[in-house]
C-alpha cells in the first residue's frame, strides 16, 4: 500500500539501535559460552600453560560422576519443591490481600520487602535466625519445650534453604495481586449468577484469567532456582569465598558443585563441561515448560503488534 519509493524503516537504523545488545550478546554471552566449550575439551587447571586437548573425556567422566548426578537431582528436587510452593504461596497471599482491608499497603509491604533484600543480607539474617544456640527458631522451640535443632547442617540444611527461598515469594504476590485486580468483575459475577460457588469461580474463571502471570512466575522461578549458588555458600559455616568445602551435602546444588570444581579442585576443563551439560538441561526444561503452557495458559488476545 505504501509507495515503494519511500520506506519508513531502514535496516541500518534498526541495527544502529540494537547494536549494543548484539555486540554485548556476542562478546559477553556467545564468546564465553564458546570459550567454556573449548575449555571443556581440555584439562586446563586455570593457570598452568601446559594444558592439552583431551576430547570428550571430561563429558565421559561427568557421566559417571556420582556427586555431579546427586547435585543435579538435588537441584531438580529443590526447584520442584520451591517453584510450585512459591507460586501457590504468592497466589494465596494475593487472594488474601485482594479485598477491602485496613492498612492494605502495610500488609503488602511486609510481605513484599523480603523479596528485595540483597542476597548477602538475606544470608546473614537467616544465619542469625537459624543459629543453633542464639537463633530465633530454636528460641521459639525452647519456649514450646522442644529440643534445639542444628538447622544449617545435614539433614536440615536443605529445608532451611527451602525456607529462605520461600521467604522471598512476595515479589510474585505483588504481580499476582495486580493480575487479580485486572480480572473483570463481570466475569466472576456472571459465573456466580450461573450458580457457581466461590471455589469454582476461582478455579474456572479467576485462575485461567491470571494464568499468564502464574506462567511467568513458573518460568522465572525455575531459572532462579537453577542458578542458586550464593545462598548455600554464605549459609554454610565458614562464610568466606574459600569456604565452599563446608557447604553441607543437602545444599550442595549443581552450581555449588561447578564452583567447587573450578576454584577448589582447579579443574576448569571439567567445570566447563559441567556448565555445558547444565546449559543443555536448562534449555530442555525451559522448552518443556514453554510447551506445557499451551495446556494451561490462557491468552485473551494477542494484540502485541507482532506484525
Amino acid at each position, binding site marked *: 500500500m505504501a509507495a515503494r519509493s519511500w520506506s519508513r*524503516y531502514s535496516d541500518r*537504523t*534498526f541495527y*544502529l*539501535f*540494537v547494536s*549494543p*545488545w*548484539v*555486540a*554485548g*550478546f556476542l*562478546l*559477553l*554471552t556467545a564468546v*564465553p*559460552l564458546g*570459550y*567454556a566449550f573449548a575449555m571443556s575439551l581440555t584439562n586446563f587447571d*586455570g593457570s598452568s600453560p601446559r594444558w592439552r586437548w583431551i576430547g570428550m573425556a571430561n563429558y565421559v567422566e561427568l557421566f559417571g560422576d556420582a556427586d555431579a548426578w546427586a547435585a543435579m537431582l538435588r537441584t531438580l528436587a529443590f526447584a520442584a519443591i520451591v517453584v510450585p510452593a512459591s507460586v501457590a504461596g504468592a497466589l494465596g497471599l494475593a487472594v*488474601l490481600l485482594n479485598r477491602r482491608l*485496613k492498612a492494605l499497603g502495610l500488609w503488602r509491604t*511486609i510481605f513484599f*520487602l523480603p523479596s*528485595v*533484600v*540483597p542476597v*548477602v*543480607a538475606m544470608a*546473614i*539474617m537467616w544465619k*542469625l*535466625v537459624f*543459629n543453633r*544456640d*542464639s537463633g*530465633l527458631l*530454636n*528460641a521459639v522451640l525452647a519456649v514450646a519445650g522442644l529440643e534445639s535443632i542444628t538447622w544449617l547442617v545435614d539433614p536440615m540444611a536443605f529445608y532451611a534453604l527451602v525456607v529462605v527461598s520461600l521467604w522471598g515469594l*512476595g515479589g510474585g504476590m*505483588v*504481580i499476582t495481586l*495486580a*493480575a487479580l485486580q485486572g480480572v473483570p468483575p463481570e466475569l466472576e459475577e456472571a459465573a*456466580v449468577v450461573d450458580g457457581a460457588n*466461590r471455589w469454582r469461580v476461582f478455579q474456572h474463571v479467576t485462575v485461567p484469567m491470571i494464568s*499468564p*502471570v502464574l506462567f*511467568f512466575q513458573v*518460568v522465572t522461578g525455575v531459572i532462579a532456582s537453577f*542458578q542458586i*549458588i550464593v545462598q548455600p555458600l*554464605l549459609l554454610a559455616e565458614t*562464610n*568466606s569465598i574459600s569456604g565452599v568445602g563446608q557447604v553441607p551435602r543437602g545444599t550442595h546444588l549443581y552450581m555449588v558443585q561447578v*564452583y567447587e570444581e573450578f576454584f577448589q579442585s582447579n579443574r576448569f576443563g571439567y567445570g566447563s563441561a559441567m556448565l555445558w551439560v547444565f*546449559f543443555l538441561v*536448562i534449555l530442555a526444561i*525451559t522448552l518443556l515448560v514453554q510447551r506445557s503452557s499451551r495446556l494451561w495458559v490462557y491468552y485473551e488476545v494477542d494484540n502485541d*503488534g507482532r506484525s
Partner: protein
Amino acid sequence: MADRRKPSAGAIYVLLLALAVLFAGPFVWLVLAALKSRAEWAAIPTRILPAQAQWDNFTAALTDINFVAYTANSLFLSTIYAVLVTATSALVGFGFARLRGRGHRALFVVVLSTMMLPQILTLLPTYVLFARIGLVNTYWPWVLWGLAASPYLVFLFRQFFAAIPRELEDAAIIDGCGWVRMFARIFLPLSWPALITSFLLSFTWTWGDYIAPALLLDVDHTTLSVAITSWYRDPRGNAIPTVQAAGAALYMVPVLLIFLFAQRYFIRSVVTSGIKG
C-alpha cells in the same frame, strides 16, 4: 449457599498478623542482634531483648572494616552500571518496539531466550576470559556489562515504547524528524517512569551482587556486599555476629528505601513485562 459465606473479617486479620510475623521475624531478629552485646547474643537460654541497646555495634560496623570506602566502591560500580545499562537498554528497546529491519523477529526471540539463560552460566567462563585480558581488579567488567544492555530491561523498554501511539511517530516523520532525534526528543522524555524503574532495578542488582565482585575484585577494590560477609572478625578470626548484623542492616537499608519509595513504578513495570512474558 453455605459456601458463599465470607470468612469473617476478624479471622482474616488474625491470619494476616500471623503471616506478617513470619515474614518480618528475620528483620526483627537482625535488628535485635545488632543491638545486643556479644555476651547477650551468646547467652543461653536465648535472650530476646538486649538489656540496653548497644549502639556501639553500629559504630564498630562502620569502623572495623573500611565501611565508607566499600560503600563508595559499591555506589560507584552500581551507578556506572545502572546509567550505562539504562541508556543502552532504552536504545535497544526502542529499536525492537518501533523499528523494523531484516531479522528483527529472530533477534527478539534471541533476546527473550537470553532472559531465560542463567547468568551464572556465563559468569565463570567470563571471569576466566577477563582474567586473561587483565580486567581483574578493574571496574571495566561492569562498564562492559552496562554497554551490553540487559535483556530484561530491553524487554521492559520494548513493552513501554510499544504502548506509545503510532500517531506520535507519524507526526514526527511528517515533520521530517529522523529516528534518532525522535528517540531522544520525543520518546525518551515520555519514558521517565521506565527510566527510573530501570535505573533503580539495575542499581540494586549491582548493589546486591556478591559472586561477580567476589571473583573479580580484591580486598581493596571489592564491594560492600563482599566486605560485610567476610571481614567482621575479632583478632582470633571468629566472626562477630552482632557487629555483622549491624553492618548488614546498614547495607540493606538503602535498597529497602528505594523499593519502598519506588514500589509503584516497580510493580507496574514488573506487571507489564510479566503479563506478556
